[in-house]
């Protein structure tokens, strides 16, 4: 699908319509959703006492919601006791201000980021870039879509819409690897990305990640991944900032363990992801590595207001395994971009409806066949169709959503702007072009997300290119 500057949840209908006619996209989606469902199915088949584990995982998440304010206060106390600086952000603007403040405070020139939907949600990258820092997405898929100036298309596999030849072309252009052929193998492309990003990890002043869980009783943040980029981002740079949406807290390490039993299996069919990090405070005085300064940003951005709705708050149970996306016939047909926001698929339609302004998301709850595949798939027992019905009722009754004035920023920040910038950058990589973009209000220009840092070609060392030549393209 050709990405245009019109992608926003507001245009969900039209975007879906177009996406469903895109044969290439359909083939890619078909491949990806089958791949994930196949792996997951096999893992769950072999998972002894599966339903009991699912029930315990649901209970851990329900417990978190039932005691949310108390647990957040406890988290603040225990994380502070461990030496982590805890910050509270009511909305995206405050979240950005906190993180950019930290970046400026430590004079960050190079920022490395682990895959995180919540930093996407608050459009952190352009704000960090506006401080003059280079910002690098370091998850391989995220790195690729960043180079391409596109948004990620799937929670678990951000660049499933790109072929190896697409990636080779991108690396050729953006990493200055002029002799890289279209037939470069996938391991070769992966190695090139490893080299390019290794350089950035070692030079980075600041690592920014999301959070899979934060443990109230111990003040720990838990990060789950397969590549090692999140470990790199928390181990090498002197400062680490973890940004969490507030519902990610859990009460105890026991609850975290119950969730870790289920999350990797449901996400990728793994018994455990390659790396799980449990970080409690910054490195101790006698340690040789790890961040010397640890920050935790607790972000609300509309969630706290959802807790009062006994039906819709179920959406806050989600731990982002992505399984409901793959199971959804609508997602299988239209893919992630059509939803027009950070979150896609069944849970994405729900979250966007809850967190974004009503007038932008009114079509989302109708993009659902009520088949119930999502509900059946969700290990946490979220009843998506029931939530969709509730949202449909609200839309039809003309009721406003939960949005308050504090979240108005998100209203003015559809995916459209990010994509508009991506397109602009293809012509002129300089940010100062932005205010002149047609249809882009100048006041918003500084918030516009660019996934493509300036001066890209010169951002990588000559060694990277030379290293490749020396290896004869291997």
């Amino acid at each position: 699908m050709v990405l245009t500057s019109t992608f926003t949840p507001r245009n969900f209908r039209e975007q879906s319509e177009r996406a469903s006619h895109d044969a290439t996209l359909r083939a890619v989606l078909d491949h990806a959703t089958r791949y994930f469902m196949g792996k997951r199915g096999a893992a769950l088949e072999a998972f002894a006492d599966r339903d009991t584990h699912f029930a315990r995982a649901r209970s851990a998440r329900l417990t978190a919601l039932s005691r949310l304010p108390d647990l957040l206060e406890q988290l603040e106390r225990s994380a502070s006791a461990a030496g982590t600086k805890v910050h509270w952000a009511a909305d995206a603007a405050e979240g950005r201000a906190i993180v950019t403040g930290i970046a400026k405070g430590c004079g960050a020139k190079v920022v490395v980021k682990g895959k995180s939907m919540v930093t996407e949600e608050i459009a952190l990258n352009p704000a960090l870039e506006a401080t003059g820092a280079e910002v690098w997405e370091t998850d391989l898929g995220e790195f690729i879509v960043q180079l391409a100036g596109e948004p990620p298309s799937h929670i678990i596999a951000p660049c499933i819409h790109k072929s190896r030849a697409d990636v080779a072309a991108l690396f050729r252009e953006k990493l200055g690897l002029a002799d890289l052929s279209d037939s470069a193998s996938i391991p070769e492309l992966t190695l090139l990305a490893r080299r390019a990003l290794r350089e950035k990890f070692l030079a980075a002043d600041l690592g920014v990640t999301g959070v899979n869980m934060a443990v109230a009783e111990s003040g720990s943040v838990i990060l789950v991944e397969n590549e090692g980029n999140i470990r790199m981002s928390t181990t090498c740079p002197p400062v680490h900032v973890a940004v969490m949406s507030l519902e990610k807290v859990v009460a105890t390490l026991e609850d975290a363990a119950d969730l870790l039993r289920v999350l990797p299996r449901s996400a990728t069919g793994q018994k455990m992801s390659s790396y799980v990090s449990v970080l409690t405070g910054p490195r101790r005085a006698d340690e040789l590595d790890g961040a010397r300064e640890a920050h935790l940003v607790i972000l609300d951005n509309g969630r706290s207001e959802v807790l009062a709705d006994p039906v819709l708050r179920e959406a806050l149970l989600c731990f982002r395994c992505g399984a409901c996306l793959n199971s959804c016939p609508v997602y299988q047909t239209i893919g992630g971009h059509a939803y027009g926001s950070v979150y896609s698929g069944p849970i994405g339609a729900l979250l966007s409806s809850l967190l974004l302004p009503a007038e932008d998301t009114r079509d989302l709850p109708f993009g659902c066949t009520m088949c119930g595949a999502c509900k059946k798939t969700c290990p946490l027992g979220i009843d998506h169709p029931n939530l969709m019905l509730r949202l449909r009722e609200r839309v039809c009754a003309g009721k406003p959503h939960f949005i308050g004035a504090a979240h108005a920023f998100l209203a003015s920040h559809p995916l459209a702007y990010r994509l508009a910038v991506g397109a602009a950058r293809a012509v002129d990589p300089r940010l100062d072009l932005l205010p002149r973009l047609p249809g882009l209000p100048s006041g918003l220009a500084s918030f516009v997300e660019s996934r493509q840092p300036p001066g890209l070609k010169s951002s990588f060392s000559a060694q990277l290119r030379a290293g490749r030549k020396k290896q004869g393209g291997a």
Partner: protein
Amino acid sequence: MSRTRILDTLRAGLAAAPLSVPEPPARPASLAVGPDAWALLAAVLEPLDVRLRVAKNPAEAATHVADIARARGAASYARWQDMPAGLDMDAALAGLTRLSPDCCQALAQVDLGLTFAQAALLDSGSLVLIAGAQRPRSVSLLPPTHVCLVPRASLLPDVSALPELLSRQRGPSGLLPSCLNLVTGPSSTADIELVLVRGVHGPGALDIVGLDWDL
């Protein structure tokens, strides 16, 4: 202030619509760690492309580690200072240059990183590495090959053993260790065309040596 506003909104929400959590079912019994534990561990590691070599004594462990270094073509290594007693890993790796694990920049030059696991989980094949003064986190992360020693007594059933293990590691102030990593197989990605590649940012090779005696 945002903090107060957020907490107040949450409290108001729960007051308006209280949320009670039904008692969850009991956690299913964990796998028993019996005489077949090494075989179970080897079986769960195999699909992850991780080979488990079990040593009966320190001399065998040294031979295994030397074999691994040769097979992986390593010319240099760095290791945790802290190692299970009775193991002379520097003698085992005498042909290699030992580099000091001072920082990430230093470790980026190293071919092989040697650590030991405070626990290994049979259910998932996960190694539990706990960072500390003598145990830098990057030794298991930056070199292309990671070799991990797993003492017999450290074998545990699954991740439900983690809270207790962590509690035992609390410092005098009650703080948990700054970093615990579960390492399950090599670094991996399937981001390009869903084709699995080992070794994207972390080590592409993980080798485990089981220490099958009472340390």
